[in-house]
């Protein structure tokens, strides 16, 4: 088997299993309240990490570039209560404009 197919199948199987683990195994079981409060906070913690890494990380470096500028504009749009579509387009347009000049 070529390295490409080995990677495709191994990563595919692993990802399918990781995604299914919680929904299939944890399922309907109610978590204890204390655990429930912790799990509720997974979302903000992970979202903040996704914001940080998507906007500022390039490989293993922190880079302030057009993405960060787009994020700043997005933050202003969010504070002004702009709809999600406007927020996303404003960020992309900011980055695109900065790259064009």
């Amino acid at each position: 088997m070529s390295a490409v197919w080995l990677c495709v199948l191994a990563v595919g199987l692993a990802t399918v299993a990781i995604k299914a683990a919680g929904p299939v195994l944890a399922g309907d079981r109610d978590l204890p309240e204390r655990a429930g409060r912790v799990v509720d906070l997974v979302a903000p913690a992970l979202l903040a990490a996704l914001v940080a890494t998507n906007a500022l990380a390039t490989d293993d470096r922190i880079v302030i570039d057009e993405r960060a500028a787009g994020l700043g504009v997005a933050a202003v749009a969010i504070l002004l209560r702009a709809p999600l579509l406007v927020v996303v387009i404003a960020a992309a347009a900011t980055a695109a404009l900065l790259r064009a000049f």
Partner: protein
Amino acid sequence: MLASVADETGQAESRREAGRARETAAGAPRREVRPSPRGGRYRDGVRAVAPLVPAVLAFGISFGVLARAAGFPGAASLVMSATTFAGSAQFAVVSVLGAGGTAAAAIGAAVLLNARYGPMGLAAAHVFEGGRLRRFLESQLLVDESWALSNRGGRFDRHVLVGAGALLYVGWVGGSAIGVAAGDRLGDPATLGLDAAFPALFLALLATQLHSRHAVLAALTGGAIALVLVPLTPAGVPVIAATAGCLVGLTRPARATERRRAPRAAAVARETSS
């Protein structure tokens, strides 16, 4: 769009009709839309994620192009998009193999990147319904965007997750196919600033969650952990480690959290009406 995500009560029929027209125009998968006892509908997920479709399509295309350039057979690229269905891990495999790295290094990087779906799936596990096979199939529609959009002020909505995930899946696999077929005749999505769309999306979704001090603390902790680890660890580790930010939930008695649920719900309602 955010308003439609936060909508728990249903909207005027005219807006639904407008939404239906848009979906059809966008080529969204036609599915039987039925009202759910919990308020969400598959269509809500499709509508919520629609603004991201151009970006997802563009990244699918660039995956197809880059994979081909790295020597992937076309079928391998498509099988990968259809099974892995997670952009960052797929790009990691292509870049490691393309740079002459070993299969083990590529697989390790991709699995680390996708390990975040463990905690994400656990957080949303309670909304999945039905038998194991159905849970299994629906869980495969879990990606960053569908997961984040389906989180309505701390609670997950299965219809939004499945509706958004299905449209993202079509966009991602379709984009990959276009990229494989069209080769490098297509431009770089970065020129259009599409890479800046994703952090903006996640920030907008994060903003809807910051209605308790706990949530703000968890976000600050998670973001800080990720940034500190970026230069120190392989890609993927920073985001997984950031999950530890949720442990701030252990620091307060239950009553404090319960009391804050009410203002948070009010804030969601405000967004809905605006």
